[in-house]
């Protein structure tokens, strides 16, 4: 089993080992020299480092020296520095035959120097400094050594060697100079560029170790640039140092504890002074910053998650760094690559290496970290990216995230490598708070991810994602993230274990000399929902006031309670269920006064608070209340007199009225009263067993239906005849007119040919059709789901009138509806005409009305295609009389009748051959000269 585990996690373990050693160990930097991508890296880092060096040198400067609170330490520092320098020169001698590396590092050093004048400035300042630094003997032993080395070594280019020195120094200095506060004793100062830097104060033991190491390395003979032994040794040294630091820190802690104990005592010894200095130095810092994890092992988040993300990052190594880079890693990966299928492809390709193209990226190009705030997502991303050798580029909600800006940023981060900046490491993009980003921006990101998939093999084309992207969000179910979620490796952060968190907090309190016991810390964790950030903030807050953290303090404190979003369902559940008895950790301060605070959380006051908090945290009062309304009747509770119901409903009414007031007056001062309704419901209806809560949708459904009905009625009303419409409004239509109208328009029609109707029946039919037209109703043919053709009322106002479960109204037969539909569509066109002609509109005159129709100007005729399409069918259905064929002719060929119409009219109406030819615009009249003779 163990073996298997080792096998499985070999590379992670390996990686972790890497991290335990400081990330910028000489070993590593040597390796990076062989990289293809970060070739210039070393040089730049050196430069970067040389900037950091400046403050180190500054103690020699009398002005800067005053910054140091304990000048006694300064010589020590300088001593160690010069020693190191000596050592590094040793190394240089050893390496000097290896010209390649030397050559490589030099030009790369020049590049940034040219591009950044400021940097070169720094160098200029540095040059003499270094010289000064090395020249005067500081400590006899060190000086001796340096001199010895110097004589041994043939210094050809003094200048170069200085530079070389810097190059080599970097490795050692790196861990001396911190941007964050290191553990253990340290001295803070302002760096060259104005940033705050810290240096560790070291013991002599460490120096001894270093010295011994120097000796060792000198003695070694080696063929390789960096021998394996040396690497090992260095690793060893690092470990030892670590141990030492740890020990140192522990002693510090002990000291501080001791000091704490006799805090009341009059005198503070030297050490206390230092601690005070430290504190005063770090006063400006938030604890959150101060105690932020800087190493993988410091992380509080769950191991599995850390490892997964790290692994994913490592998968990018192949694309980001070159192949040779992490042979060790790769080998390990190769061994176990088959086990994890999402890596298969990558490692399969890896074997072929040179031939295959560079697209050996992990399948999921994006990692999506999600979880509630304060679990250390951002920290994790930062630390891992840094440790995996990336340069962090962060985009968060504070940046402009419009599509364009977002795009340029992403492209800048993923496509380019920083040349100008000090840090040449490849970028790793961290998009923080992505759940707040606009949808288009996220789509853009998606496109970027997808584009790479298609465009394999065209690296030059650009737009190919070659850098890892880590997205961080609080809510992965934000709609805009839906697609991204499918394409990303989603890592959900669970809550940090309270015990783990509390122990970390305990460490912090110890360090900050704040008295606290585990219990109170646990209480704090619970109160903040295991939010590391708010825990630390709270602690710091308390620290300012008093030196002791008691459980009582935490319970009564108002800060630290998180204002987090909670899902609606959890809120409803809280409201409808009685809380389980549980030790109460926070109470209202009022309860304390009443000495009731020892009562558990099932007390009324606590319940009140809890439910109120839950409601606050959901934020969507409207929804919450709607959910209450739709679910409360399902609850099991005892209320024989239904008084509770009344009470609850009164509250609902109150809330509704308040809402109305707020909406109407835009006056939000009443809003705070609304959440209390949930408390009422909780007190009334909460039971031990949570009811099955359903999402409230009936209100929404009702409003949809209502709109539909209203639209139907409006549609009907808009095209009514004005003289009818005038006397109606929507309410009256629905309440008074429509119900009887539905009956009226469904008379009994004999199912026979209309030709056989009596005059009375014909008159009735005509009447019906007039009603239909006046009220803008007709029948439309529709295909029912089961494939049958039916005629339904249009607009379907019958839906508005009919109620579920009521007596079904009599329906007209299909044929009758068809008949009505045809008649209405015909008549609505000729409505004006037929109305003016008075009574002769009955069906017997339908032939005549056809001819009437023929006289209607052509532009109107186009309005009734329905008549043509329905009628022929109609004729076939009903026809066994000859006359109908006659009727059909004018219907089916309206154009022809229009032609023949003139002939008919000529005979009937105005029987004349003469016609008038109008000549618009001009007259043909001619004036002619006439001679008088003509008159004679």
């Amino acid at each position: 089993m163990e073996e298997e585990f080792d096998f499985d996690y070999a590379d992670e373990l390996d990686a972790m080992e890497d991290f335990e050693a400081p990330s910028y160990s000489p070993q590593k930097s040597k390796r990076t020299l062989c990289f293809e991508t970060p070739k210039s890296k070393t040089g730049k880092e050196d430069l970067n480092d040389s900037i950091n060096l400046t403050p180190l040198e500054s103690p020699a400067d009398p002005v800067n020296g005053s910054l140091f609170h304990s000048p006694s330490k300064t010589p020590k520092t300088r001593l160690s520095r010069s020693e190191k320098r000596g050592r590094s020169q040793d190394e240089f001698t050893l390496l000097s035959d290896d010209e390649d590396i030397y050559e490589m590092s030099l030009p790369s050093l020049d590049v940034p120097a040219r591009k950044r004048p400021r940097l070169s400035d720094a160098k200029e300042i540095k040059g003499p400094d270094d010289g000064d630094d090395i020249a005067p003997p500081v400590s006899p032993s060190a000086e001796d050594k340096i001199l010895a080395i110097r004589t041994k070594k043939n210094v050809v280019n003094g200048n170069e060697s200085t530079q070389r020195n810097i190059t080599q120094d970097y490795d050692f200095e790196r861990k001396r100079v911190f941007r964050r506060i290191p553990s253990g004793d340290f001295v803070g100062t302002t760096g060259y560029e104005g940033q705050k830097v810290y240096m560790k104060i070291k013991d002599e033991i460490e120096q001894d170790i270093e010295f011994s190491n120097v000796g060792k390395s000198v003695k070694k003979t080696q063929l390789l640039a960096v021998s394996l032994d040396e690497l090992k040794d260095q690793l060893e040294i690092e470990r030892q140092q670590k141990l030492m630091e740890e020990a140192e820190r522990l002693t510090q802690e002990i000291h501080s504890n001791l000091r704490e104990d006799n805090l009341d005592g009059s005198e503070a010894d030297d050490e206390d002074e230092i601690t005070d200095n430290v504190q005063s130095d770090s006063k400006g810092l938030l604890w959150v910053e101060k105690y932020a994890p800087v190493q993988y092992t410091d992380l509080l988040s769950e191991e599995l998650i850390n490892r997964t993300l790290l692994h994913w990052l490592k998968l990018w190594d192949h694309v980001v760094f070159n192949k040779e880079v992490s042979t060790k890693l790769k080998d390990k990966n190769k061994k176990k690559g088959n086990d994890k299928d999402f890596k298969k492809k990558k490692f399969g390709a890896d074997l072929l290496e040179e031939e295959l193209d560079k697209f050996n990226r992990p399948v999921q190009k994006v990692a999506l970290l999600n979880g509630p705030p304060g679990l250390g997502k951002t920290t994790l991303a930062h630390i891992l990216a840094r440790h995996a050798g990336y340069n962090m580029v962060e985009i968060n909600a504070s940046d402009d995230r419009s599509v364009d800006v977002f795009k340029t940023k992403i492209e800048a981060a993923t496509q380019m490598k920083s040349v100008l900046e000090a840090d040449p490491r490849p970028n790793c993009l961290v998009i923080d708070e992505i759940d707040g980003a606009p949808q288009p921006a996220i789509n853009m990101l998606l496109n970027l991810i997808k584009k790479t998939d298609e465009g394999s093999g065209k690296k030059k084309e650009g737009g190919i994602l070659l850098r890892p992207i880590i997205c961080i969000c609080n809510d992965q179910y934000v709609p805009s993230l839906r697609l991204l979620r499918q394409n990303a490796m989603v890592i959900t952060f669970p809550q940090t274990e309270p015990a783990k968190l509390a122990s970390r907090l305990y460490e912090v309190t110890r360090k900050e000399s704040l008295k606290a016991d585990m219990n109170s810390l646990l209480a704090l964790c619970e109160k903040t929902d295991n939010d590391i950030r708010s825990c630390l903030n709270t602690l710091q807050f308390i620290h300012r006031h008093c030196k002791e953290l008691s459980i009582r303090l935490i319970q009564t404190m108002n800060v630290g309670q998180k204002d987090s979003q909670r899902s609606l369902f959890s809120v409803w559940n809280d409201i409808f269920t009685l809380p389980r008895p549980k030790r109460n950790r926070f109470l209202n301060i009022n309860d304390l006064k009443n000495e009731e605070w020892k009562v558990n959380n099932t007390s009324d006051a606590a319940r009140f608070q809890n439910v109120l908090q839950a409601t606050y945290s959901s934020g969507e009062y409207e929804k919450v209340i709607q959910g209450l309304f739709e679910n409360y009747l399902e609850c099991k509770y005892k209320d024989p007199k239904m008084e509770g119901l009344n009470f609850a409903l009164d509250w609902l009414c109150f809330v509704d009225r308040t809402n109305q007031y707020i909406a109407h007056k835009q006056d939000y001062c009443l809003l705070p009263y609304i959440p209390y309704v949930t408390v009422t419901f909780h007190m009334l209806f909460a039971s031990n067993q949570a009811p099955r809560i359903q999402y409230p949708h009936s209100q929404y459904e009702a409003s949809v239906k209502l709109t539909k009905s209203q639209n139907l009625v409006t549609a009907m009303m808009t095209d009514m005849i004005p003289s009818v419409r005038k006397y109606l409004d929507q309410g009256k239509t629905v309440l008074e007119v429509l119900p009887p109208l539905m009956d009226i328009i469904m008379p009994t029609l004999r199912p026979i040919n209309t030709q056989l109707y009596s005059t009375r029946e014909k008159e009735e039919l005509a009447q019906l059709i007039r009603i239909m037209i006046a009220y803008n109703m007709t029948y439309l043919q529709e295909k029912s789901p089961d494939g049958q053709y039916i005629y339904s009322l249009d607009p379907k106002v019958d839906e508005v009138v009919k109620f579920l479960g009521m007596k079904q109204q009599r329906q007209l037969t299909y044929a009758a509806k068809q008949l009505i539909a045809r008649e209405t569509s015909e008549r609505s066109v000729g409505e004006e005409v037929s109305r003016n002609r008075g009574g002769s509109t009955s069906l017997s005159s339908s032939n005549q009305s056809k001819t009437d129709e023929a006289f209607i100007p052509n532009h109107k005729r186009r309005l009734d295609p329905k008549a043509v399409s329905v009628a022929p069918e109609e004729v076939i259905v009903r026809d066994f009389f000859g006359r109908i064929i006659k009727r059909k002719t004018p219907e089916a060929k309206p154009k022809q009748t229009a032609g023949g119409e003139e002939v008919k009219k000529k005979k009937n109406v105005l029987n004349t051959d003469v016609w008038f030819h109008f000549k618009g615009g001009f007259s043909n009249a001619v004036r002619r000269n006439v001679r008088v003779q003509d008159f004679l």
Partner: protein
Amino acid sequence: MQIPIKIPGGPGQCPEWAIIDLQGGLETRNNVSLNGRFMGDLHFTHKNVPVLIIGHHILYGKVCDLEKPFAVLTKKHSDTDNDTVLDQDNTDKQHTDTHYLVKAIIRRRLLFKTRPKPIIANVPKKL
């Protein structure tokens, strides 16, 4: 040279005619000549607007007074009274006897210059 113009009867007995001024022409169907044909109906509305109905067209016009009144003359020969008005070639020689008879005086014309409207049968005329 004098051309005598005679007014039959007394000065007050001369009939007064009116010109119908049409914007357009009268045409016939089937190449029938216009002669002696029934042309159409002329009505006056109660507002004294002339309405002319020709075929299936209805024309609305207006009554205008002429600046100078016209007289409608008929040419007469003293010797041969039965000469037609249009027989001008004959009259050339016996010009001395020629005289004109006033048939009617025209002081007004009925001007129909608007586009005619079609008549749709069975639709009451919009007046």
